[in-house]
Protein backbone atom coordinates (compact mmCIF):
# COMPACT_ATOMS: atom_id res chain seq x y z
CA UNK A 1 0.00 0.00 0.00
CA UNK A 2 1.28 3.43 -0.87
CA UNK A 3 2.29 5.55 2.07
CA UNK A 4 0.27 8.58 3.03
CA UNK A 5 1.89 11.71 1.67
CA UNK A 6 0.95 15.30 2.43
CA UNK A 7 2.04 18.85 1.87
CA UNK A 8 2.30 20.05 5.43
CA UNK A 9 3.38 23.04 7.46
CA UNK A 10 6.08 22.44 10.08
CA UNK A 11 3.84 23.22 13.04
CA UNK A 12 1.17 20.92 11.63
CA UNK A 13 3.79 18.19 11.35
CA UNK A 14 4.77 18.70 15.00
CA UNK A 15 1.13 18.24 16.01
CA UNK A 16 0.84 15.11 13.85
CA UNK A 17 4.06 13.76 15.31
CA UNK A 18 2.66 14.24 18.81
CA UNK A 19 -0.45 12.25 17.88
CA UNK A 20 1.71 9.49 16.38
CA UNK A 21 3.64 9.32 19.66
CA UNK A 22 0.41 8.87 21.62
CA UNK A 23 -0.09 12.37 23.00
CA UNK A 24 -3.52 12.66 24.63
CA UNK A 25 -3.25 16.05 26.34
CA UNK A 26 -2.32 19.49 25.12
CA UNK A 27 -2.34 22.60 27.31
CA UNK A 28 -1.39 25.80 25.56
CA UNK A 29 -1.62 29.52 25.17
CA UNK A 30 -1.71 31.35 21.82
CA UNK A 31 1.61 32.74 20.64
CA UNK A 32 3.08 33.45 17.23
CA UNK A 33 4.71 31.58 15.53
CA UNK A 34 3.69 28.32 17.23
CA UNK A 35 -0.09 28.68 17.40
CA UNK A 36 -0.84 26.19 14.62
CA UNK A 37 0.32 23.37 16.87
CA UNK A 38 -2.48 24.27 19.28
CA UNK A 39 -5.00 24.79 16.48
CA UNK A 40 -4.38 21.38 14.95
CA UNK A 41 -4.54 19.61 18.30
CA UNK A 42 -7.74 21.43 19.34
CA UNK A 43 -9.23 19.79 16.28
CA UNK A 44 -7.60 16.36 16.48
CA UNK A 45 -7.34 15.48 20.18
CA UNK A 46 -11.08 15.29 20.93
CA UNK A 47 -11.49 12.94 17.95
CA UNK A 48 -9.40 10.36 19.81
CA UNK A 49 -10.88 11.14 23.22
CA UNK A 50 -7.88 13.28 24.13
CA UNK A 51 -8.01 16.65 25.83
CA UNK A 52 -7.14 20.13 24.61
CA UNK A 53 -7.23 23.10 26.92
CA UNK A 54 -6.32 26.70 26.24
CA UNK A 55 -5.09 28.01 29.55
CA UNK A 56 -5.11 31.56 30.94
CA UNK A 57 -1.39 32.09 30.42
CA UNK A 58 1.87 30.36 29.47
CA UNK A 59 2.65 29.37 33.04
CA UNK A 60 -0.80 27.86 33.43
CA UNK A 61 -0.32 25.94 30.20
CA UNK A 62 2.92 24.43 31.49
CA UNK A 63 1.28 23.65 34.84
CA UNK A 64 -1.66 21.92 33.16
CA UNK A 65 0.56 19.57 31.16
CA UNK A 66 2.55 18.57 34.25
CA UNK A 67 -0.67 17.89 36.15
CA UNK A 68 -2.01 15.83 33.26
CA UNK A 69 1.27 13.94 32.91
CA UNK A 70 0.98 12.83 36.53
CA UNK A 71 -2.25 11.05 35.64
CA UNK A 72 -0.26 9.00 33.10
CA UNK A 73 -1.00 10.98 29.94
CA UNK A 74 1.56 11.84 27.28
CA UNK A 75 1.50 15.62 27.20
CA UNK A 76 2.52 18.52 24.99
CA UNK A 77 2.60 22.28 25.09
CA UNK A 78 3.80 24.68 22.42
CA UNK A 79 5.15 28.18 22.66
CA UNK A 80 7.71 30.68 21.43
CA UNK A 81 10.38 32.90 23.05
CA UNK A 82 8.39 35.10 25.46
CA UNK A 83 6.25 32.10 26.36
CA UNK A 84 9.33 29.99 26.91
CA UNK A 85 10.61 32.60 29.35
CA UNK A 86 7.38 32.30 31.33
CA UNK A 87 7.33 28.52 31.18
CA UNK A 88 10.84 28.24 32.59
CA UNK A 89 9.53 28.35 36.15
CA UNK A 90 7.64 25.12 35.69
CA UNK A 91 10.09 23.51 33.28
CA UNK A 92 12.30 23.50 36.36
CA UNK A 93 9.44 21.94 38.32
CA UNK A 94 9.10 19.17 35.72
CA UNK A 95 12.89 18.61 35.94
CA UNK A 96 12.97 18.20 39.72
CA UNK A 97 9.66 16.35 39.98
CA UNK A 98 10.81 14.23 37.01
CA UNK A 99 7.57 14.52 35.10
CA UNK A 100 7.68 13.66 31.39
CA UNK A 101 6.46 16.40 29.06
CA UNK A 102 7.28 17.82 25.63
CA UNK A 103 7.58 21.51 24.80
CA UNK A 104 7.61 22.66 21.18
CA UNK A 105 9.27 26.07 21.16
CA UNK A 106 9.31 27.83 17.80
CA UNK A 107 12.27 30.20 17.77
CA UNK A 108 11.47 33.81 16.85
CA UNK A 109 13.49 36.96 17.34
CA UNK A 110 14.11 38.21 20.86
CA UNK A 111 14.68 39.21 23.58
CA UNK A 112 11.22 40.12 24.87
CA UNK A 113 8.55 40.54 22.20
CA UNK A 114 11.34 40.93 19.66
CA UNK A 115 10.27 39.93 16.17
CA UNK A 116 7.24 37.66 16.52
CA UNK A 117 7.12 36.63 12.87
CA UNK A 118 10.85 36.63 12.16
CA UNK A 119 13.02 33.52 12.36
CA UNK A 120 15.70 33.11 14.96
CA UNK A 121 17.83 30.47 16.64
CA UNK A 122 18.38 32.40 19.81
CA UNK A 123 16.53 30.23 22.34
CA UNK A 124 19.06 27.38 22.36
CA UNK A 125 20.80 28.62 25.50
CA UNK A 126 17.42 29.17 27.21
CA UNK A 127 16.73 25.50 26.55
CA UNK A 128 19.63 24.59 28.81
CA UNK A 129 19.98 27.49 31.20
CA UNK A 130 16.56 29.14 31.20
CA UNK A 131 15.28 27.69 34.43
CA UNK A 132 17.32 28.19 37.58
CA UNK A 133 19.32 25.51 39.31
CA UNK A 134 21.17 22.48 37.99
CA UNK A 135 18.97 20.30 35.86
CA UNK A 136 19.05 18.04 32.81
CA UNK A 137 18.30 19.42 29.35
CA UNK A 138 17.27 17.72 26.14
CA UNK A 139 16.66 19.92 23.10
CA UNK A 140 16.09 18.77 19.52
CA UNK A 141 16.55 21.12 16.55
CA UNK A 142 14.92 19.70 13.41
CA UNK A 143 15.66 21.11 9.95
CA UNK A 144 12.69 20.00 7.85
CA UNK A 145 8.97 19.38 8.11
CA UNK A 146 9.53 15.62 7.92
CA UNK A 147 12.14 15.82 10.63
CA UNK A 148 9.92 18.00 12.83
CA UNK A 149 7.36 15.19 12.74
CA UNK A 150 9.94 12.52 13.53
CA UNK A 151 11.78 14.50 16.18
CA UNK A 152 8.52 15.28 17.97
CA UNK A 153 7.94 11.53 18.20
CA UNK A 154 11.49 11.09 19.49
CA UNK A 155 10.97 13.92 21.99
CA UNK A 156 8.03 12.02 23.51
CA UNK A 157 10.16 8.87 23.63
CA UNK A 158 13.00 10.64 25.40
CA UNK A 159 10.64 12.41 27.82
CA UNK A 160 9.02 9.11 28.83
CA UNK A 161 12.27 7.14 28.87
CA UNK A 162 14.19 9.65 30.99
CA UNK A 163 11.27 11.16 32.98
CA UNK A 164 12.16 14.70 32.04
CA UNK A 165 10.94 17.63 29.94
CA UNK A 166 12.15 17.57 26.34
CA UNK A 167 12.17 20.57 24.02
CA UNK A 168 11.67 20.51 20.27
CA UNK A 169 12.96 23.77 18.86
CA UNK A 170 12.36 24.47 15.19
CA UNK A 171 13.25 27.95 14.05
CA UNK A 172 10.34 29.91 12.62
CA UNK A 173 11.34 28.97 9.06
CA UNK A 174 11.12 25.22 9.72
CA UNK A 175 7.89 25.69 11.70
CA UNK A 176 6.14 27.76 9.05
CA UNK A 177 7.39 26.37 5.75
CA UNK A 178 5.42 23.78 3.83
CA UNK A 179 7.05 20.63 2.50
CA UNK A 180 6.20 17.17 1.37
CA UNK A 181 5.94 14.76 4.24
CA UNK A 182 5.64 11.00 4.13
CA UNK A 183 3.70 9.77 7.15
CA UNK A 184 5.32 6.80 8.85
CA UNK A 185 3.02 3.79 9.22
CA UNK A 186 1.95 2.92 12.77
CA UNK A 187 4.78 0.87 14.24
CA UNK A 188 7.34 2.16 11.76
CA UNK A 189 8.82 4.64 14.23
CA UNK A 190 9.62 3.49 17.72
CA UNK A 191 7.14 4.70 20.36
CA UNK A 192 8.29 4.42 23.96
CA UNK A 193 5.78 4.33 26.80
CA UNK A 194 6.35 5.14 30.45
CA UNK A 195 7.67 2.32 32.61
CA UNK A 196 5.00 1.32 35.10
CA UNK A 197 5.97 0.43 38.65
CA UNK A 198 6.76 -3.24 39.18
CA UNK A 199 6.23 -3.15 42.94
CA UNK A 200 2.89 -3.15 44.77
CA UNK A 201 1.53 0.24 45.92
CA UNK A 202 2.63 -0.16 49.54
CA UNK A 203 6.26 -0.57 48.43
CA UNK A 204 6.22 2.14 45.78
CA UNK A 205 8.47 5.19 45.99
CA UNK A 206 8.38 7.67 43.11
CA UNK A 207 12.16 8.20 43.12
CA UNK A 208 13.34 4.73 44.08
CA UNK A 209 16.87 4.52 42.68
CA UNK A 210 17.08 0.79 43.25
CA UNK A 211 15.46 0.77 39.80
CA UNK A 212 18.33 2.83 38.36
CA UNK A 213 18.69 6.48 37.53
CA UNK A 214 15.19 6.67 36.04
CA UNK A 215 12.76 5.23 38.59
CA UNK A 216 9.31 4.15 37.34
CA UNK A 217 6.55 6.76 37.65
CA UNK A 218 3.08 5.67 38.78
CA UNK A 219 -0.07 7.55 37.79
CA UNK A 220 -2.50 9.46 39.98
CA UNK A 221 -5.89 7.84 40.09
CA UNK A 222 -4.56 4.29 40.15
CA UNK A 223 -3.85 2.34 43.34
CA UNK A 224 -0.57 4.18 43.77
CA UNK A 225 -0.73 7.13 46.14
CA UNK A 226 2.37 9.27 46.25
CA UNK A 227 3.59 12.80 46.86
CA UNK A 228 5.06 15.17 44.29
CA UNK A 229 6.83 18.40 45.20
CA UNK A 230 9.14 21.00 43.70
CA UNK A 231 11.26 20.91 46.83
CA UNK A 232 14.39 18.79 46.95
CA UNK A 233 13.05 15.40 47.77
CA UNK A 234 14.08 12.00 49.01
CA UNK A 235 13.36 8.72 47.27
CA UNK A 236 9.89 8.66 48.82
CA UNK A 237 9.04 11.97 47.16
CA UNK A 238 8.81 13.95 50.40
CA UNK A 239 10.82 17.12 51.01
CA UNK A 240 14.23 16.71 52.53
CA UNK A 241 17.11 18.98 53.43
CA UNK A 242 19.45 16.13 54.28
CA UNK A 243 22.67 17.17 52.59
CA UNK A 244 23.66 13.75 51.31
CA UNK A 245 20.23 13.08 49.79
CA UNK A 246 19.98 16.47 48.12
CA UNK A 247 23.44 16.11 46.61
CA UNK A 248 22.74 12.56 45.40
CA UNK A 249 19.37 13.43 43.89
CA UNK A 250 20.62 16.56 42.13
CA UNK A 251 23.50 14.59 40.64
CA UNK A 252 21.23 11.75 39.54
CA UNK A 253 18.79 14.12 37.83
CA UNK A 254 21.58 15.50 35.66
CA UNK A 255 23.37 12.17 35.28
CA UNK A 256 20.36 10.36 33.85
CA UNK A 257 20.76 12.50 30.72
CA UNK A 258 24.50 13.15 30.70
CA UNK A 259 25.35 9.46 31.11
CA UNK A 260 23.14 8.60 28.15
CA UNK A 261 24.35 11.08 25.55
CA UNK A 262 25.03 8.32 23.04
CA UNK A 263 21.39 7.26 23.22
CA UNK A 264 20.11 10.82 22.97
CA UNK A 265 22.50 12.72 20.70
CA UNK A 266 21.81 12.56 16.98
CA UNK A 267 23.60 14.39 14.17
CA UNK A 268 24.24 14.16 10.45
CA UNK A 269 27.63 14.24 8.75
CA UNK A 270 27.67 15.40 5.15
CA UNK A 271 30.83 15.19 3.01
CA UNK A 272 33.04 15.38 6.07
CA UNK A 273 35.41 12.46 5.27
CA UNK A 274 37.92 14.58 3.43
CA UNK A 275 36.68 18.00 4.48
CA UNK A 276 39.11 20.79 5.25
CA UNK A 277 36.40 23.28 6.14
CA UNK A 278 33.50 22.08 8.28
CA UNK A 279 30.27 23.96 8.73
CA UNK A 280 28.53 23.24 12.02
CA UNK A 281 24.91 24.27 11.69
CA UNK A 282 21.36 23.38 12.71
CA UNK A 283 17.76 24.06 11.75
CA UNK A 284 16.99 25.97 8.57
CA UNK A 285 20.52 27.42 8.58
CA UNK A 286 21.88 23.92 7.94
CA UNK A 287 19.93 23.85 4.69
CA UNK A 288 21.71 26.98 3.47
CA UNK A 289 24.96 25.40 4.68
CA UNK A 290 24.36 22.22 2.68
CA UNK A 291 23.75 24.27 -0.44
CA UNK A 292 26.95 26.23 0.20
CA UNK A 293 28.94 23.01 0.72
CA UNK A 294 27.69 21.68 -2.62
CA UNK A 295 28.65 24.93 -4.34
CA UNK A 296 32.09 24.90 -2.72
CA UNK A 297 32.66 21.30 -3.82
CA UNK A 298 31.84 22.33 -7.41
CA UNK A 299 34.68 24.81 -7.12
CA UNK A 300 37.03 22.15 -5.74
CA UNK A 301 36.93 23.30 -2.12
CA UNK A 302 36.76 20.43 0.35
CA UNK A 303 33.88 21.60 2.50
CA UNK A 304 31.51 19.51 4.59
CA UNK A 305 28.60 19.88 6.99
CA UNK A 306 28.11 18.66 10.54
CA UNK A 307 24.41 19.08 11.16
CA UNK A 308 23.35 19.20 14.80
CA UNK A 309 20.03 17.42 15.36
CA UNK A 310 20.28 17.25 19.15
CA UNK A 311 21.44 20.56 20.56
CA UNK A 312 21.32 19.40 24.20
CA UNK A 313 23.09 17.32 25.19
CA UNK A 314 25.54 18.90 22.75
CA UNK A 315 27.48 16.55 20.42
CA UNK A 316 30.74 17.57 22.14
CA UNK A 317 32.66 14.37 21.47
CA UNK A 318 31.91 14.36 17.74
CA UNK A 319 32.66 18.03 17.22
CA UNK A 320 35.89 17.74 19.19
CA UNK A 321 36.98 14.89 16.89
CA UNK A 322 35.92 16.87 13.83
CA UNK A 323 37.96 19.88 14.94
CA UNK A 324 41.07 17.68 14.95
CA UNK A 325 40.55 16.82 11.28
CA UNK A 326 39.73 20.17 9.64
CA UNK A 327 41.52 23.44 9.05
CA UNK A 328 38.59 25.59 10.06
CA UNK A 329 35.04 25.45 11.40
CA UNK A 330 32.29 27.82 10.34
CA UNK A 331 29.24 28.29 12.54
CA UNK A 332 26.41 30.12 10.85
CA UNK A 333 23.47 30.78 13.17
CA UNK A 334 20.55 33.17 13.58
CA UNK A 335 21.80 34.64 16.85
CA UNK A 336 24.96 36.38 17.99
CA UNK A 337 27.11 33.32 18.62
CA UNK A 338 25.37 30.90 20.96
CA UNK A 339 26.31 27.67 19.14
CA UNK A 340 29.69 29.17 18.25
CA UNK A 341 30.51 29.57 21.91
CA UNK A 342 29.53 26.01 22.71
CA UNK A 343 31.61 24.70 19.79
CA UNK A 344 34.65 26.69 20.96
CA UNK A 345 34.14 25.29 24.44
CA UNK A 346 34.40 21.68 23.36
CA UNK A 347 37.24 21.59 20.81
CA UNK A 348 40.28 22.44 22.95
CA UNK A 349 41.40 25.06 20.42
CA UNK A 350 42.02 22.42 17.75
CA UNK A 351 40.64 24.58 14.94
CA UNK A 352 39.70 28.21 14.44
CA UNK A 353 35.93 28.85 14.63
CA UNK A 354 34.39 31.48 12.38
CA UNK A 355 30.87 32.57 13.19
CA UNK A 356 28.29 34.00 10.84
CA UNK A 357 25.64 35.72 12.91
CA UNK A 358 22.36 37.16 11.79
CA UNK A 359 19.62 38.58 14.02
CA UNK A 360 17.77 40.82 11.57
CA UNK A 361 14.91 38.42 10.92
CA UNK A 362 16.38 37.30 7.61
CA UNK A 363 17.69 33.79 7.00
CA UNK A 364 21.40 33.15 6.49
CA UNK A 365 21.67 32.48 2.77
CA UNK A 366 24.06 30.05 1.03
CA UNK A 367 25.99 32.90 -0.56
CA UNK A 368 27.00 34.26 2.83
CA UNK A 369 28.29 30.86 3.91
CA UNK A 370 30.07 30.18 0.62
CA UNK A 371 31.84 33.50 0.91
CA UNK A 372 33.09 32.56 4.38
CA UNK A 373 34.21 29.13 3.15
CA UNK A 374 36.37 30.78 0.49
CA UNK A 375 37.71 33.23 3.06
CA UNK A 376 38.90 30.61 5.55
CA UNK A 377 39.83 27.63 3.35
Amino acid at each position, binding site marked *: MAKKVAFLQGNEAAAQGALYAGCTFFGGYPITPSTEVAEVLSNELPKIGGKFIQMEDEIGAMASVIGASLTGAKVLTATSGPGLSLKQELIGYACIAETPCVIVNVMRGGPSTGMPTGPSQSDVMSAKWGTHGDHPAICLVPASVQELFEETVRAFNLAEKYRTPVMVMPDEIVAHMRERIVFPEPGELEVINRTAPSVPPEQYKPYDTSFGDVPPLAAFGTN*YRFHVTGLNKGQDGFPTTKAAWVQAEEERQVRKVEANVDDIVQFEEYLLDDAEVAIVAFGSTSRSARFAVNEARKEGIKAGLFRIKTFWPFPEKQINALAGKVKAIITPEMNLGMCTGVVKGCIDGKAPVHGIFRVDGEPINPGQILEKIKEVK
Partner: protein
Amino acid sequence: MAFDYDKYIRPGKLPHIWCPGCGHGIVMKGLIRAIDTLGLDKNNTAIVSGIGCASRLPGYLDCCTLHTAHGRAAAFATGVKMAKPEMNVILCGGDGDGTAIGGNHFIHACRRNIDMTYIIMNNNIYGMTGGQFSPCTPTGAKASTTPYGNPDPSFDVAQLAIGAGATFVARGTAYHATQIDKLIVEAIQHKGFSVVEILDDCPTTYGRRNKFKSVIEMMNRLKDVAVPVKAAEKMTAEQLQGKIITGVLHKVEKPEYTTEYAKVIERAQK
Protein backbone atom coordinates in the same frame (compact mmCIF):
# COMPACT_ATOMS: atom_id res chain seq x y z
CA MET B 1 -15.83 7.01 69.78
CA ALA B 2 -13.33 9.63 68.80
CA PHE B 3 -12.85 10.26 65.10
CA ASP B 4 -9.89 8.35 63.69
CA TYR B 5 -7.82 10.90 61.77
CA ASP B 6 -4.95 8.44 61.38
CA LYS B 7 -6.83 6.69 58.61
CA TYR B 8 -6.04 9.68 56.39
CA ILE B 9 -2.70 10.85 57.77
CA ARG B 10 0.49 9.52 56.18
CA PRO B 11 2.46 7.53 58.71
CA GLY B 12 5.56 9.30 59.97
CA LYS B 13 4.73 12.71 58.48
CA LEU B 14 3.61 14.43 61.69
CA PRO B 15 4.32 16.69 63.49
CA HIS B 16 3.31 19.30 60.93
CA ILE B 17 5.30 22.48 60.30
CA TRP B 18 2.63 24.88 61.59
CA CYS B 19 3.29 27.12 64.60
CA PRO B 20 1.40 26.71 67.87
CA GLY B 21 -1.85 28.66 67.57
CA CYS B 22 -2.02 28.50 63.75
CA GLY B 23 -5.43 27.50 62.44
CA HIS B 24 -4.23 25.44 59.48
CA GLY B 25 -4.34 22.21 61.48
CA ILE B 26 -7.98 22.88 62.37
CA VAL B 27 -8.74 23.27 58.67
CA MET B 28 -6.87 20.06 57.83
CA LYS B 29 -8.90 18.14 60.38
CA GLY B 30 -12.06 19.62 58.89
CA LEU B 31 -10.96 18.50 55.44
CA ILE B 32 -10.23 14.99 56.71
CA ARG B 33 -13.70 14.74 58.32
CA ALA B 34 -15.24 15.96 55.06
CA ILE B 35 -13.35 13.34 53.03
CA ASP B 36 -14.51 10.70 55.50
CA THR B 37 -18.13 11.88 55.50
CA LEU B 38 -18.21 11.68 51.71
CA GLY B 39 -16.35 8.36 51.67
CA LEU B 40 -13.93 9.59 49.03
CA ASP B 41 -11.56 6.95 47.72
CA LYS B 42 -8.04 8.03 48.66
CA ASN B 43 -6.70 6.46 45.46
CA ASN B 44 -9.01 8.63 43.44
CA THR B 45 -8.52 11.88 45.32
CA ALA B 46 -5.87 14.43 44.38
CA ILE B 47 -4.94 17.18 46.78
CA VAL B 48 -3.08 19.99 45.10
CA SER B 49 -1.42 23.05 46.61
CA GLY B 50 0.94 25.90 45.81
CA ILE B 51 3.63 27.30 48.11
CA GLY B 52 3.32 28.62 51.63
CA CYS B 53 2.45 27.30 55.09
CA ALA B 54 -1.07 26.23 54.10
CA SER B 55 0.28 24.56 50.96
CA ARG B 56 2.19 22.05 53.07
CA LEU B 57 -1.14 20.40 53.94
CA PRO B 58 -1.22 17.80 51.11
CA GLY B 59 2.02 16.18 52.27
CA TYR B 60 0.31 14.99 55.45
CA LEU B 61 -2.64 13.36 53.73
CA ASP B 62 -2.57 9.81 52.39
CA CYS B 63 -3.97 10.66 48.94
CA CYS B 64 -2.51 11.53 45.53
CA THR B 65 -0.81 14.73 46.56
CA LEU B 66 0.77 17.45 44.48
CA HIS B 67 2.69 20.30 46.07
CA THR B 68 3.28 22.60 43.10
CA ALA B 69 4.95 25.98 42.59
CA HIS B 70 3.90 29.30 44.13
CA GLY B 71 0.42 30.26 42.98
CA ARG B 72 0.10 27.48 40.42
CA ALA B 73 -2.10 24.98 42.25
CA ALA B 74 -5.24 25.77 40.26
CA ALA B 75 -3.45 25.39 36.92
CA PHE B 76 -1.79 22.06 37.83
CA ALA B 77 -5.08 20.84 39.25
CA THR B 78 -6.88 21.82 36.06
CA GLY B 79 -4.51 19.52 34.16
CA VAL B 80 -5.17 16.65 36.56
CA LYS B 81 -8.95 17.12 36.42
CA MET B 82 -9.09 17.51 32.62
CA ALA B 83 -6.95 14.43 32.06
CA LYS B 84 -8.88 12.34 34.63
CA PRO B 85 -12.30 13.92 35.30
CA GLU B 86 -13.31 10.95 37.44
CA MET B 87 -10.82 12.03 40.12
CA ASN B 88 -11.85 14.18 43.08
CA VAL B 89 -9.60 17.21 42.98
CA ILE B 90 -9.19 19.38 46.06
CA LEU B 91 -6.94 22.42 46.19
CA CYS B 92 -5.64 24.16 49.23
CA GLY B 93 -3.38 27.08 49.99
CA GLY B 94 -3.09 30.48 51.53
CA ASP B 95 -4.30 33.96 50.61
CA GLY B 96 -1.03 35.22 49.13
CA ASP B 97 -0.51 32.08 47.08
CA GLY B 98 -4.07 32.03 45.79
CA THR B 99 -4.94 35.68 45.22
CA ALA B 100 -1.61 37.37 44.39
CA ILE B 101 0.83 35.24 42.41
CA GLY B 102 -1.91 32.70 41.70
CA GLY B 103 -4.67 35.24 41.09
CA ASN B 104 -4.89 34.65 37.37
CA HIS B 105 -5.15 30.87 37.68
CA PHE B 106 -7.71 31.31 40.47
CA ILE B 107 -10.10 33.55 38.56
CA HIS B 108 -9.90 31.42 35.43
CA ALA B 109 -10.60 28.22 37.36
CA CYS B 110 -13.67 30.04 38.72
CA ARG B 111 -14.65 31.15 35.21
CA ARG B 112 -14.36 27.65 33.73
CA ASN B 113 -16.45 26.24 36.56
CA ILE B 114 -14.31 23.11 36.53
CA ASP B 115 -15.40 20.61 39.17
CA MET B 116 -12.79 21.13 41.88
CA THR B 117 -12.89 22.47 45.43
CA TYR B 118 -10.47 25.18 46.53
CA ILE B 119 -9.90 25.69 50.24
CA ILE B 120 -8.25 29.06 50.84
CA MET B 121 -6.83 29.53 54.32
CA ASN B 122 -6.88 33.29 54.67
CA ASN B 123 -4.62 34.46 57.48
CA ASN B 124 -4.10 37.90 55.95
CA ILE B 125 -0.34 37.54 55.61
CA TYR B 126 2.59 35.76 53.93
CA GLY B 127 3.51 33.59 56.90
CA MET B 128 6.20 31.32 55.53
CA THR B 129 8.40 34.19 54.37
CA GLY B 130 8.02 35.98 57.68
CA GLY B 131 5.00 38.23 57.55
CA GLN B 132 4.90 40.41 54.45
CA PHE B 133 1.53 41.95 53.54
CA SER B 134 -0.71 40.00 51.15
CA PRO B 135 -3.65 41.14 49.01
CA CYS B 136 -5.78 40.11 51.98
CA THR B 137 -3.98 42.14 54.64
CA PRO B 138 -6.39 44.76 55.97
CA THR B 139 -5.62 48.37 55.06
CA GLY B 140 -3.64 49.98 57.83
CA ALA B 141 -2.35 46.71 59.30
CA LYS B 142 1.30 46.14 60.10
CA ALA B 143 3.38 43.65 58.20
CA SER B 144 7.13 43.30 57.79
CA THR B 145 6.86 45.25 54.52
CA THR B 146 4.27 47.75 55.78
CA PRO B 147 6.09 49.17 58.81
CA TYR B 148 3.99 52.37 58.57
CA GLY B 149 0.71 50.55 58.06
CA ASN B 150 -0.63 48.88 54.92
CA PRO B 151 -1.62 51.40 52.23
CA ASP B 152 -3.20 48.72 50.00
CA PRO B 153 -6.91 47.98 49.84
CA SER B 154 -7.59 44.27 50.38
CA PHE B 155 -9.43 41.58 48.44
CA ASP B 156 -12.67 40.01 49.57
CA VAL B 157 -11.78 36.47 48.46
CA ALA B 158 -15.37 35.20 48.41
CA GLN B 159 -16.61 38.17 46.37
CA LEU B 160 -13.66 37.76 44.01
CA ALA B 161 -14.61 34.11 43.45
CA ILE B 162 -18.28 34.95 42.91
CA GLY B 163 -17.38 37.74 40.48
CA ALA B 164 -15.08 35.43 38.53
CA GLY B 165 -17.79 32.81 38.09
CA ALA B 166 -17.34 30.20 40.83
CA THR B 167 -20.68 28.48 41.32
CA PHE B 168 -20.28 27.61 45.00
CA VAL B 169 -18.67 29.98 47.48
CA ALA B 170 -18.63 29.56 51.24
CA ARG B 171 -16.81 31.16 54.12
CA GLY B 172 -15.96 29.81 57.52
CA THR B 173 -13.42 30.48 60.21
CA ALA B 174 -10.82 28.46 62.05
CA TYR B 175 -12.73 29.25 65.27
CA HIS B 176 -15.92 27.62 63.97
CA ALA B 177 -14.20 24.26 63.64
CA THR B 178 -17.30 22.10 63.41
CA GLN B 179 -18.68 24.16 60.54
CA ILE B 180 -15.56 23.66 58.37
CA ASP B 181 -16.22 20.05 57.37
CA LYS B 182 -19.86 20.80 56.64
CA LEU B 183 -18.89 23.61 54.26
CA ILE B 184 -16.25 21.45 52.58
CA VAL B 185 -18.67 18.53 52.21
CA GLU B 186 -21.19 20.77 50.49
CA ALA B 187 -18.45 22.29 48.32
CA ILE B 188 -17.16 18.90 47.15
CA GLN B 189 -20.70 17.68 46.48
CA HIS B 190 -21.36 20.73 44.32
CA LYS B 191 -20.79 20.09 40.62
CA GLY B 192 -18.56 22.95 39.50
CA PHE B 193 -15.79 25.11 40.90
CA SER B 194 -16.30 25.61 44.61
CA VAL B 195 -14.38 27.92 46.89
CA VAL B 196 -14.27 27.65 50.65
CA GLU B 197 -12.53 30.56 52.31
CA ILE B 198 -11.52 29.86 55.87
CA LEU B 199 -10.57 32.91 57.89
CA ASP B 200 -7.50 31.84 59.75
CA ASP B 201 -4.93 33.31 62.08
CA CYS B 202 -1.18 33.70 62.03
CA PRO B 203 -0.17 34.55 65.58
CA THR B 204 3.53 34.40 64.73
CA THR B 205 3.79 36.91 61.91
CA TYR B 206 0.49 38.82 62.00
CA GLY B 207 -0.75 38.70 65.57
CA ARG B 208 2.41 39.97 67.20
CA ARG B 209 2.77 42.92 64.85
CA ASN B 210 -0.87 43.90 65.18
CA LYS B 211 -1.20 44.00 68.95
CA PHE B 212 -2.96 40.71 69.47
CA LYS B 213 -1.86 39.65 72.91
CA SER B 214 -2.56 35.96 72.46
CA VAL B 215 -3.84 33.26 70.13
CA ILE B 216 -7.02 33.25 72.18
CA GLU B 217 -7.53 36.91 71.35
CA MET B 218 -7.07 36.18 67.64
CA MET B 219 -9.50 33.28 67.79
CA ASN B 220 -11.99 35.39 69.69
CA ARG B 221 -11.77 38.01 66.96
CA LEU B 222 -12.79 35.34 64.42
CA LYS B 223 -15.69 34.39 66.68
CA ASP B 224 -16.77 38.02 67.13
CA VAL B 225 -16.63 39.19 63.51
CA ALA B 226 -18.40 36.13 62.04
CA VAL B 227 -22.10 36.49 61.33
CA PRO B 228 -23.97 33.54 59.79
CA VAL B 229 -25.71 34.25 56.47
CA LYS B 230 -29.19 33.78 57.97
CA ALA B 231 -28.52 36.19 60.82
CA ALA B 232 -26.96 38.72 58.47
CA GLU B 233 -30.14 38.84 56.40
CA LYS B 234 -31.93 40.37 59.38
CA MET B 235 -29.22 42.91 60.14
CA THR B 236 -28.86 46.47 58.90
CA ALA B 237 -25.83 47.70 57.01
CA GLU B 238 -24.85 49.59 60.12
CA GLN B 239 -25.04 46.46 62.25
CA LEU B 240 -22.96 44.57 59.71
CA GLN B 241 -20.17 47.14 59.85
CA GLY B 242 -16.92 45.31 60.64
CA LYS B 243 -18.60 41.90 60.49
CA ILE B 244 -17.81 39.06 58.11
CA ILE B 245 -20.62 36.89 56.78
CA THR B 246 -20.05 33.16 57.06
CA GLY B 247 -21.78 30.10 55.65
CA VAL B 248 -22.75 29.31 52.06
CA LEU B 249 -22.65 32.69 50.34
CA HIS B 250 -23.33 31.65 46.76
CA LYS B 251 -24.65 28.55 45.09
CA VAL B 252 -25.83 28.38 41.48
CA GLU B 253 -25.99 25.66 38.85
CA LYS B 254 -24.02 26.25 35.65
CA PRO B 255 -22.46 23.96 33.04
CA GLU B 256 -19.37 22.26 34.42
CA TYR B 257 -16.18 22.35 32.35
CA THR B 258 -15.20 18.69 32.04
CA THR B 259 -18.82 17.79 31.27
CA GLU B 260 -18.84 20.43 28.55
CA TYR B 261 -15.54 19.10 27.18
CA ALA B 262 -17.05 15.60 27.05
CA LYS B 263 -19.62 17.14 24.70
CA VAL B 264 -16.79 18.60 22.61
CA ILE B 265 -15.41 15.06 22.28
CA GLU B 266 -18.85 13.79 21.25
CA ARG B 267 -19.17 16.50 18.58
CA ALA B 268 -15.64 15.85 17.30
CA GLN B 269 -16.32 12.12 16.98
CA LYS B 270 -19.58 12.50 15.03
